[in-house]
């Protein structure tokens, strides 16, 4: 366990509603990431953060925003959820600078009806 907690773990919502997923780490690590996992697509990077208030887009960032006001928390927001955003969302942290060693949370399953 890398000290990563995702919440909620499961959520069902309706199209057009806002949704926020939270990733909390207890390890005080600088790098945090949000990925989504879909059958046939593997893991795709949505957004990542390299420090408080420092974030950048990944390959599938449209429809998502993120915020990081504290080192330990990285929030992923869907401003207006769509059915195409039904997915399992994983938060990850990186322990070391300039390495690809990621430690993942247990995921948040989001269903948009």
């Amino acid at each position, binding site marked *: 366990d890398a000290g990563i907690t995702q919440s909620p773990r499961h959520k069902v919502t309706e199209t057009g509603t806002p949704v926020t997923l939270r990733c909390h780490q207890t390890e005080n690590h600088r790098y945090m*990431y949000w990925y989504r996992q879909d059958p*046939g697509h593997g893991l795709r990077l949505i957004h990542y953060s390299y420090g408080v208030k420092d974030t*950048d887009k990944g390959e599938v960032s449209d429809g998502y925003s993120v915020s990081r006001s504290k080192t330990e928390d990285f929030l992923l927001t869907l401003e207006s959820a769509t059915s195409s955003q039904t997915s399992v969302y994983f938060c990850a942290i990186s322990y070391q600078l*300039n390495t690809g060693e*990621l*430690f*993942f949370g247990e*995921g948040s399953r989001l269903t948009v009806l």
Partner: protein
Amino acid sequence: QQQVKQSPQSLIVQKGGISIINCAYENTAFDYFPWYQQFPGKGPALLIAIRPDVSEKKEGRFTISFNKSAKQFSLHIMDSQPGDSATYFCAAGAGGSNYKLTFGKGTLLTVNP
């Protein structure tokens, strides 16, 4: 553009057999090649990783073979066990100040007893 291509999508192996999963990449700037293992309902976990300065890395029953000129790398699982049944993801990353991984689409491995 899919930067990391993984095959096969699924693989069935008998207990004691060898499981082989292959990946190919396009970006020559990649300098880190990890494999992740994921069990149902869990987040991916780092299994083994290699950098391009070596052609092979072995950890227990798991071996990565790396061919820089062909831009290919593979995971070999020797003496495969039912407990190895999981989804395996290859990934590739490039160094720099904002490290990101690009994942393959995954291989579902089933090891029959």
